């Protein structure tokens, strides 16, 4: 038992530092994907609510396809399909040039693309939940349409969206474990290597799970505090 615990410590031949490095990769990838997802979500929500008809159709297709297809499949499609697509494209423009797409941006792109579909629905719901009177009041003050949106609708919609965005972060964090399947050295990737080389799979997979649990628990507390802070001045419902 003591020997097993020493393996996940920080001494000679132990995996502690490697696992911490993996955890940092996981957090970086998850956080970057989350930001990409939120940006895509804002665009998507705008498109689905007030874009021209073809934008609305694209938005509807995006959210229903991504939410109806397994995450790992989308990751494979973007990671492998996307990279070879980009390579083929650059090959047409500049024959002979071989582009190497780095693993990190590809992973962030794939996870962010998935998160964006969920974020679109979150923002769409929260924007539509803002009383039309607020918009009209802005118009009456002769604000321009984009001012009405940025100064009046969006701040209120964001507050409504916080609980769902907190959930989305937890989902993105957990989904990020899937990218170890395409060979990225994130927390689970490192855990797998450690499990194989020490022949102690249960020890390492449990450690990986517990690290995820710690990150999610801290995030939950943080979002809870953020919700309370943003809820100041709101009548409790």
């Amino acid at each position, binding site marked *: 038992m003591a020997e097993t615990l020493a393996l996940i410590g920080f001494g000679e031949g132990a995996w502690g530092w490697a696992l911490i490095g993996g955890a940092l990769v996981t957090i970086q990838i998850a956080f970057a994907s989350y930001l990409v997802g939120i940006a895509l979500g804002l665009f998507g929500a705008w498109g689905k609510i007030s874009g021209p008809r073809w934008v609305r159709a694209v938005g509807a297709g995006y959210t229903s396809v991504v939410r109806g297809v397994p995450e790992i*499949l989308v990751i*494979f499609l973007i990671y*492998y*399909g996307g990279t070879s697509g980009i390579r083929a494209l650059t090959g047409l423009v500049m024959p002979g040039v071989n582009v190497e797409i780095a693993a990190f941006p590809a992973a962030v792109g794939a996870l962010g693309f998935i998160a964006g579909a969920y974020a679109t629905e979150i923002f769409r719901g929260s924007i539509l939940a803002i009383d039309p009177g607020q918009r009209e009041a802005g118009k009456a003050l002769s604000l321009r349409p984009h001012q009405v949106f940025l100064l009046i609708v969006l701040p209120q919609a964001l507050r409504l969206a916080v609980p769902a965005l907190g959930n989305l972060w*937890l989902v993105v964090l957990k989904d990020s474990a*899937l990218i170890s399947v395409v060979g990225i050295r994130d927390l689970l990737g490192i855990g797998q290597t450690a*499990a194989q080389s020490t*022949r102690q*799979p249960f020890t390492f997979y449990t450690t990986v*799970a517990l690290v995820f649990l710690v990150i999610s628990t801290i995030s939950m507390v943080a979002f809870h505090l953020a919700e309370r802070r943003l809820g100041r001045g709101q009548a409790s419902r």
Partner: protein
Amino acid sequence: MTFDLDVAIRIFGRLIDGLWMTIFLVVASMILGNLLAIPVALARVSERWWLRYPAAAYILFIRGTPLIVQMFMIYYGLGQFPVVRQSFLWPLLRDALVCAVLALSLNTAGYSGEVLRGAIGAVPKGLKEAGTALGMTRARVMFLITLPLAFRQSLPTFANESVLLLKASAIVFTITIQDIMGEAVIIRSQTYRTLEPLLSAALLYLLLTFLIVQGFSLLERRLSVHRRKATVTELLAGMR
């Protein structure tokens, strides 16, 4: 990188084999997982702390860690212990399919348990009191009044959970199971084609998602007949 329709059509036949595996995994885990969710939810709302705390910890663990890690813990992890390897359960636990169903079911039990817990709390107190007033035991009130109502209450959420389960099931190819995703990955490595197998697999998953959503809305409509206004024909039929 072009998409070849002929290749896609030829591949489809092989993906259908994976389709049955996916359907089996989802149905088996849905049944087993939701049955397990009942004791989890009951323990979670129990007045006894030694039931409530472990259930809360279980739900926290399941919802706070990735399913793929949970599955690896079961499939690759359990064999680490000689006790497990020597037990009569080892032939079962060594099997990838058993482990996949186990991981998906335990995961579903955690998520659905939490949903059910909320729904149990939402059942009006008066209904339970009515049961007690009729001389029902607490267990009877729970199983005849509270749980059925809680189940119906959480049906829309279960529909969502089932779609999530279908999508989550695609990771079982990492423990060698040939579901839709597994077949697509094998075809990809054999043919060096990426788009055809993956897009065809995506199409199958979309179809299954659609079927689940439709199936649940049908079930929901049937189970909430009391809330729907009767049509004229039904009213006339009732008058006769």
